[in-house]
């Protein structure tokens, strides 16, 4: 069982939750603090989904306006704060991709290039994990047990809401391979995540 080095540190979740609560009470300074604290990470997520810097910045802008408007509902979601923020960004990113479906072809062309850098970059270093929730830490440990391309297929299926056949088409892999990788990937995650529960 991997040791979690953050167990003894003060909870970053509590600080983020306090900021979100203040934003729910229309505290603009709190929004600024949350932005300073989380924008690079959320921008990284948006970039991963939409792949273009201007689009990702539009997503970030829309996401923080959403956060400003719905922060009061955060507590009811029962989510760790960073995961809640991440789900807002993922959702806004997918909205943008849907609005840009006409540009899908362009995305596909960029895909080979994208695969090259994502294979190298999809394992955050420990410093990047400082604010991550316990569940994200566990997922990180379990994903790192998957082989690189397998991990990539699972990640993209989730982050970009892609089906087996969309993944096969974009990654230029046989459909059967994609299905097998996802099934094995999920099987490994099931065994591994069960140990963290």
């Amino acid at each position: 069982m991997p040791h979690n080095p953050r167990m003894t540190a003060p909870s970053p979740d509590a600080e983020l939750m306090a900021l979100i609560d203040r934003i729910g009470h229309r505290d603009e300074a709190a929004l600024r603090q949350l932005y300073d604290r989380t924008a690079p990470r959320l921008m990284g997520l948006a970039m991963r989904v939409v792949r273009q810097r201007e689009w990702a910045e539009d997503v970030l802008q829309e996401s923080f306006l959403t956060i400003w408007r719905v922060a009061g509902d955060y507590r009811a979601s029962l989510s760790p704060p960073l995961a809640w923020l991440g789900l807002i960004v993922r959702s806004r990113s997918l909205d943008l991709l849907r609005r840009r479906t006409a540009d899908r072809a362009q995305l596909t062309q960029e895909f080979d290039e994208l695969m090259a850098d994502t294979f190298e970059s999809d394992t955050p270093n420990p410093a990047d994990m400082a604010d991550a929730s316990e569940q994200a830490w566990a997922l990180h440990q379990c994903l790192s047990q998957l082989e690189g391309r397998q991990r990539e297929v699972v990640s993209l299926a989730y982050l970009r809401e892609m089906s087996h056949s969309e993944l096969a088409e974009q990654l230029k892999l046989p459909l059967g391979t994609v299905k097998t990788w996802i099934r094995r990937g999920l099987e490994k995650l099931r065994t591994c995540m069960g140990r963290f529960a």
Partner: protein
Amino acid sequence: MNLLAHPELLELLAASHALGTLRGGARRRFETLAREQAPVRAAALVWQGRLAGMTELQQPVAPDPAVWTRIRNLIDAEQAQQALERQRDNAAPIAPASTGGWLRSLALWRGAAAAGALVAVLAVGVGLNLREQLINAPAVQYVAVLSDDKAAASMLVTFDPKKKQLVLQRVGSFREGADKSLQLWALPPGGAPRSLGVLDNAPALRLAASESDVRVPALAISLEPKGGVPSAGGPTGPVLFHGPLIEKTL
């Protein structure tokens, strides 16, 4: 099949559901089971939570500093709108009934957002050309495009801090009647609209203003009786144009 008798299969289905790769009829059947059986629903929610961690694991990328400026401007404008709405609700007896709902209309909110985007583009344009402009042009630190309720740009407002001057240029086709005047308002956050002056009929006009006058998130123009109304009372006529005031970030 009774999924509850096959815990590993239940977990895999729940994981595929949360991942998004469970599609079509299989997805619908799983969701029906989840609605009927709490343990299935619980497994689905557990996996949604587990995979949500994926959003936290991406490599950070620093956004451009202008992104925060855009967010702040849009939020300030939104709050100014709400302040104006409260103000107008309080002043309701004077306002014509036909304009009562304008602030709540979705079209107008979209318009405000579009105006914000337009101003952002404009501000960037101004920034790019700054070196040439510095030599012979006024120093423009604040800029606003005021739009009507169809988001059509109607008035370009710039502030020249050296001359302490607001410069307004009509860019739309609106012309007030001879018995009316347009009046420019600053919309401070949480406060009442403050008059910045009454506009005459000229296509471009200048109003004296200090920088503290224009340190507000948004401006609006209302249609008033000839000569305008006193600031203390706030606008009495319909607000024709409004938009966020952008402090340029360079």
